[in-house]
């Protein structure tokens, strides 16, 4: 109950702070999908493992827990860690070990700022949007209709808009097209240090963090501005640049104190600057199998125990559910793949028909399925559809040396 009260107060405060004018609430434009079904899908696909949905602090299952552990390690309350009886003596150790899924964008403001068509297409065919963030949106087993329904549901989270937003939107609709100056915008982009966090591939390949800037959250969450022209609702870009916190209270983007004209100029640069074509990232060359012995201890230390077991684990010894790659998750079925130890790795996984199959079984081109999944992640990063789902899901492909190690171990007969 107390959590609900806090959330209620926060939401009320956020709403009342939105405008100096009398608060007027309107419904946003008609939703295209089935909201109720969209809500079911958001639960089924477990979007909340990564994305917070609206409260003042992250309530997501993985990210929220990692953030609570981080806060507790820095002296915050251990009671915020959403685990029953969290062991105090382990908090610092966990905090030290957690590398990924600490900061991911929330749903807040998504449908207010972004084109719904883009959101739907991104759900169906995600790509790397944030160059400094290791995590990427995984391709989920979702149909186009389901994606529409999810977007419709997300729309309900942002569904109430204030008169001030309507004023902002109407006042600035398309005005960067008419009144924005691309050259002045380029100067503002440099002067305001936008490149400290943002890449704009085709103009600026990588962000150039200013010396001493240590806001890793802002750096990691900053999207590549190349995609702004297809992502953003054009009428909301200038208002967003003028006051990001109005649309997204948890945004890492600062309020830049721009004048309206500066907002139009900056928007003109972001939306109209010529973009050079981007070469597709190349898949690295496959290294030949190692001619020295490779045993389980090495391959587990470098790959399975380091990366894979976060999702393909053992529910008994770890007191969890074994992770989504064991118990099912993100809308995918139970696979029962446990890479925790040598023998469980030989027990394979459940295929789509519920039959056990070896992870060493040859795939369509003869590559063992386990190795094929590791290479498939490289294919996915190139924007290609792979024959098997790439692993690790939602994280960068393993290095060629790591894959070489796995491949060598398999080629040598998977010795202990």
């Amino acid at each position, binding site marked *: 109950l107390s959590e609900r009260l806090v959330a209620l107060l926060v939401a009320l405060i956020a709403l*009342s702070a939105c405008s100096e004018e009398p*608060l007027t*609430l309107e419904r946003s434009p008609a939703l295209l999908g089935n909201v109720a079904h969209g809500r079911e899908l958001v639960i089924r696909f477990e979007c909340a493992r990564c994305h917070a949905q609206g*409260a003042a602090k992250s309530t997501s*299952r993985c990210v929220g827990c990692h953030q609570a552990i981080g806060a507790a390690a820095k002296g915050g309350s251990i009671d915020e860690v959403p685990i029953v009886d969290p062991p105090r003596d382990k908090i610092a150790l966990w905090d030290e070990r957690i590398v990924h899924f600490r900061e991911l964008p929330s749903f807040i403001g998504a449908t207010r700022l972004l084109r719904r068509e883009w959101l739907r297409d991104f759900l169906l065919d995600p790509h790397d949007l944030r160059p400094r963030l290791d995590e990427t949106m995984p391709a989920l087993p979702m149909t186009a209709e389901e994606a529409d329904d999810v977007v419709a549901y997300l729309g309900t989270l942002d569904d109430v808009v204030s008169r001030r937003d309507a004023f902002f939107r109407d006042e600035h609709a398309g005005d960067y097209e008419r009144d924005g100056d691309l050259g002045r915008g380029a100067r503002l982009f440099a002067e305001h240090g936008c490149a400290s966090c943002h890449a704009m591939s085709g103009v600026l390949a990588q962000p150039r963090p200013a010396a001493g800037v240590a806001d890793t959250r802002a750096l990691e969450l900053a999207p590549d501005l190349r995609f702004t022209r297809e992502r953003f609702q054009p009428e909301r870009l200038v208002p967003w640049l003028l006051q990001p916190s109005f649309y997204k209270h948890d945004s890492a983007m600062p309020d830049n104190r721009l004048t309206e004209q500066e907002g139009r100029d900056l928007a003109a640069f972001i939306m109209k600057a010529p973009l050079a074509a981007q070469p597709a990232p190349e898949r690295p060359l496959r290294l030949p199998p190692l001619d020295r012995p490779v045993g389980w*201890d090495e391959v587990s230390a470098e790959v399975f125990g380091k990366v894979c077991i976060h999702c393909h684990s053992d529910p008994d010894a770890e007191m969890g559910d074994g*992770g989504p790659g064991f118990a099912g998750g993100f809308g995918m079925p139970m696979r029962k793949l446990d890479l925790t130890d040598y*023998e469980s790795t*030989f027990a394979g996984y459940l295929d789509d028909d519920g039959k056990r199959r070896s992870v060493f079984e040859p795939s369509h081109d003869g590559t063992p399925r386990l190795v094929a999944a590791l290479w498939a992640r490289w294919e996915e990063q190139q924007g290609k559809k792979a024959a098997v789902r790439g692993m690790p899901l939602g994280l960068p492909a393993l290095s060629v040396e790591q894959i070489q190690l796995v491949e060598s171990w398999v080629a040598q007969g998977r010795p202990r």
Partner: protein
Amino acid sequence: MRSTGALCGLAVAFALLPWHSPVVEACGFAMPPQNYERELVASADQAAQELDYSYIVDTLQYFSRNDPEPDAKPADLAVRRRAERMLARAVVDSGGKFVPRAVEDASTHERIGWAVARLQRLLESDPEDPQVLTDLGVALSKLPEREEHARAILEPLAGRDLITTAQGWAALARLRRDGAGKQAATRRCLLMARSPAATCNLPFRSAGGVAAWGGRS
């Protein structure tokens, strides 16, 4: 106007609330063993590294005497499953030398039979579990009248590359009648065994249970 706004704010606030329970399961990566049953399995795991069958049996016989709690969570049931498999395996790999007190008066043949029955019970909830099937195949291969049954379990597993232990391959090598088949199984055994000589060359004539088997590595 303000009151309408407040009402809408109320609605928004509830729409923004998380729909899942704030108490969630651990992420499954870093949680240490925290209850009695997990402590037992963890210490048996350690003993498995040292091939201390006596300790494993002493420790894990708790699970053969106590049924799970009615409100046991899936992770708790998984712990029990693992413990019961380890216990049966320790009985088999020790050649029936070490058994829970309840079957201490039984013959060696009956002791192995007890382990077979425990493994068969585990299969009821997951008939395709390759780890239990492998252990069952090994256990059955130690009962002369059940060798065909053992082979009927292990051969299909081998065909699907799902034999999970060196002992499984060693048993199959012994059960196969053709030389090439025996050699192929022995090669797999040698690759998988922690102590290849003990496990693969003298797989089932080892007095005192010296056949190696690995616990959690």
